[in-house]
């Protein structure tokens, strides 16, 4: 596999990962936290008194954001290794 092709495949996989993670990012914040809060607020987060939409807006989305970045970082480091483009 030549370098050029290798790099373009690496880049495609990178874009795919970013798209998946940003889709989750969009769903938890804009989806659960804003657009569909009213529907979600009709139920509570199990075991708590949080209306679900409200919880996503004030707590849940932030927890998910943190997880997304760590997952991205972990996956990209693995991808770097696989395609031999890591820094060392």
């Amino acid at each position, binding site marked *: 596999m030549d370098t050029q092709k290798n*790099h373009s495949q*690496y*880049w495609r996989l*990178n874009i795919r990962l*970013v798209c998946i*993670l*940003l889709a989750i*990012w969009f769903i938890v*914040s*804009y989806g659960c*936290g*804003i*657009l569909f*809060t*009213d529907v979600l*607020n009709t139920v509570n*987060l199990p075991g*708590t*008194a*949080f*209306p679900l939409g*409200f*919880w996503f*807006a*004030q*707590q849940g*989305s*932030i*927890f998910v*954001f*943190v997880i*997304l*970045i*760590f997952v*991205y*970082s972990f996956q*990209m*480091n693995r991808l*770097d290794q696989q395609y*031999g*483009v*890591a*820094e*060392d």
Partner: protein
Amino acid sequence: MDVQTWTFLIVGFTFTLYVGIAIWSRASSTKEFYVAGGGVHPVANGMATAADWMSAASFISMAGLISFMGYDGSVYLMGWTGGYVLLALLLAPYLRKFGKFTVPDFVGDRYYSNTARVVAVLCAIFISFTYVAGQMRGVGVVFSRFLEVDITTGVIIGMGLVLFYAVLGGMKGITYTQVAQYVILIFAFMVPAIFISIMLTNNPIPQLGFGGNLGGDIGSRIAGGQSVALLEKLNGLHAELGFEAYTSGSKSKLDVFCIAAALMVGTAGLPHVIVRFYTVPKVRDARISAGWALLFIAILYTTAPAVAAFARTNLIDTVQNAHYTQHETEKSIPDWFHNWENTGLLAWVDKNEDGKIQYYSGKPFVGKPKFIEADKRGIHGQRLLENKPTESQNELYIDRDIMVLANPEIAQLPAWVIALVAAGALAAALSTAAGLLLVVSTAISHDLLKRTLRPDITEKQELWAARIAASFAVLVAGYFGINPPGFVAQVVAFAFGLAASTFFPAILLGIFTRWANREGVITGMLSGLIFTSSYIVYFKFLGGTSEQWLFGISPEGIGTLGMVLNFVVAMIVSKRTAPPPQEIQDLVESIRIPKGSAGPSVHD
């Protein structure tokens, strides 16, 4: 020991610490001055980024803001954290691979144009100055409230300190003081929050107590012996007093959507945040460092809404129908009410003359409280106001900043905790101010002087220019802190709107497309800039009314449309003009691959 002595001790200790760190981490080269030598550990950089990002407003005002807005306040929580996902996934690793020192560096090099560089410099300076004025003011306010000096003296002390460690240490000094400042500010925020959580919900973890039942000393009293959830009780109280339910919103969905997007994208485009990712050794470190930064920020940002709900519930329960004067057998207001009334952050007009406080939805009187002389008191001993009362039944004015500042008193915490809150608020304000001032000084000495006007200056001269520019920036910021232009609160929307509508699209297109060219990005940035600033100026300063809002979008959210406009213009113009030269297309290729990154190079 009393609060005053504790405050002097703790604030004095933290300031000595900052000075000590500055002396230990003096910068000796431009690389150290601009990007701390590019050798900061990712966890340390995460803490520094968190302190850099969390300003006096995050520390003091945000919980209060949410407390009064309920669900509608969520837009700040999501907006100011969600941007880090964009930053980590779309910008930070690539900018780190690019190397160099600043955001205008990237814009200027990627778009092979000094015009683009200068546009970026002007945006960076404008964004940073609008933001820093509020920080210096915050330092002054904290000093005046806790140490009983006047605001001007407070601002001057703050200026002196920032001047010392920013000018001496540059980014290197700032980074390590910010690490210390993060530790202090998060400790100062969490200690009272944990105590309040225990007192209201009997749960030491605020994030969990928030969704639990009322319990503990204060909570059981509020619940009146029943088993009821805090949020349920709060919604009930809100319904009784005529407020919207705490957990559901009242703003238009589209507007909330646009505000959240403008804040997120704006956060990702703020130069003082972006530049922090140039300071770590590798691309890998830039990725994980953004995760650490957001984790450290999330500790405060998930606690703040809990504190907001605790404080709101406690406040309503404490003041509603309480006697202003002390009654043995009936509910009366606690001491902290008088303390904060004396500072002017609380005010009471006894409209129905029953000597008790009634708190309902609606404004108690017109405008901010203006007290009649300092010591003129009414029949119950309350301060009298010049303001014209409104028709509403509401008799109480509460400033939102009280929610965090009065927390330790409300929870009857020891004096050292109150002193700690003062030190935490100062740490939050100083760390943000220092980061912003560095952006201004770098923009002047590096982007304008070295890269545009006088490329032949030596490194030593550039370092001197950076120090002089930093001193100059501190003086200007201090001036605005002492004489705040009346519009400071309004222009914060500017900072985010402009970052969203100028930098974000320019950087994103520069990384993810090969075809974005000089002509496209300059016209794109200018369209975003002109559209967003004219919208904000029209509605904030020239008397535009909310009926005229475009699609019902408020000025706070307009940066989102400005960003879309920037993207569209940049695409159309780029496609119709000559593509970028081959070496730029190669540059884009190399940015995308981590391999071969070097420390930020001192370029020739």
